[in-house]
């Protein structure tokens, strides 16, 4: 592996991991609210959360660019065209996968256990931390891995809001695109190999986590 390849891999893994960590708390909160509570505007939020799954990633990227661009309402954060913008693009695009998986995981927790915990004197936060979350953990871990895998491959939103700056914002998928454009197919295939290996590992682990029987 060349130094350039290692740099690309490290940037991609680091930003994808960060994106997954950043969405974890808000993702679990929204998933729990969708699974366990009835509230006004729930279906709207449900739809909004799912949008990045079905919208063209480039369109999502354009929205992010408008938000985070120099003249945008969040422009003062000065994150556009930096590795931070890569994280933002990855986070937004992975968010629906985490929320969906976590929501299903929360819904599969028998409310009976939560009710009994309450009769034993537990408050809502303790019920969540000691009953709901541990019982949903497999679905959540699997969802987080899928979100991570999705982040690894992010392209369309990233290229708009973070650009394609070699050494700074060119992730694995952007670099593959660059190399193909330059006619360096051999190098592109090597990155492709890494891409397949990483995606395979993430999805495979996610499957194993879900299927594993409890000890």
């Amino acid at each position: 592996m060349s130094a350039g390849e290692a740099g690309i891999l490290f940037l991609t893994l680091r930003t994808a991991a960060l994106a997954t960590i950043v969405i974890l708390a808000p993702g679990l909160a929204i998933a729990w609210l969708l699974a366990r509570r009835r509230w006004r505007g729930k279906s709207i939020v449900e739809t909004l959360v799912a949008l990045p799954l079905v919208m063209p990633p480039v369109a999502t990227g354009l929205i992010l660019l408008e938000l985070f661009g120099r003249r945008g309402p969040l422009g003062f954060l000065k994150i556009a065209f930096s590795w931070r913008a890569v994280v933002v693009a990855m986070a937004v695009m992975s968010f629906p996968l985490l929320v969906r998986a976590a929501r299903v995981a929360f819904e599969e927790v028998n409310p009976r256990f939560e009710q009994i915990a309450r009769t034993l004197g537990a408050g809502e936060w303790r019920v969540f931390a000691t009953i709901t979350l541990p019982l949903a953990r497999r679905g959540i871990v699997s969802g987080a891995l899928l979100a991570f895998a999705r982040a690894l491959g992010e392209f369309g939103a990233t290229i708009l809001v973070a650009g394609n700056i070699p050494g700074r914002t060119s992730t694995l998928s952007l670099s593959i695109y660059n190399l193909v454009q330059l006619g360096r197919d051999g190098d592109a295939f090597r990155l492709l190999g890494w891409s397949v290996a990483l995606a395979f590992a993430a999805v495979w682990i996610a499957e194993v986590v879900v299927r594993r029987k409890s000890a």
Partner: protein
Amino acid sequence: MTIELRNVVLPLAHFTLAVDVQMPARTTGIFGPSGAGKTSLLELIAGLRTPKAGRVVIDGRDVTDLPPRDRRIGYVPQDDALFPHLSVKQNVLYGAHNADDAVLDVLEIRHLLPRGVNQLSGGERKRVALARALLSHPDVLLLDEPLAGVDVELRNRVLQYLVRIRDEFPIPMLYVSHDIEEVRAICEAVVRIERGRAGVG
């Protein structure tokens, strides 16, 4: 110490539960056929269901608007609902400050504490669920068909544990069952319930 349901109304799937009844003795059985509303009655007292009208009063305390965690009840559901991801020890201590030796001894579960919940037999599960409820130091014990799903040989043994709880601890018990023999073996008084109507009998 008594439990009162004052003109409580709760619509159910096929009929409406409408009861105005006071627990006549420290150990009271709620007896009636399957689907009569017995479990719903317990859930009303536990705060897992909210009545459409009426008040739930435990020992003079109106708990109708209190969430389950503030009602100081020990609820043992029919399916025991042991937390599957926790050890027996973690289960019995969930609502407790400390493991009361008397409870562990009377129910003979001390040796089970390090085990996982899925390593327990049916009778052991019932005893652990009873201990978990008792150790939260409730004002009243609500038992929903504690012998349901227990095979004939085990029935008498679990029944003996229930009698021991009744005799060793001064706690009031509300005992739901569709088996009058069982109710008579445990309880001093019986409330009959049929299609959502209850009466002391």
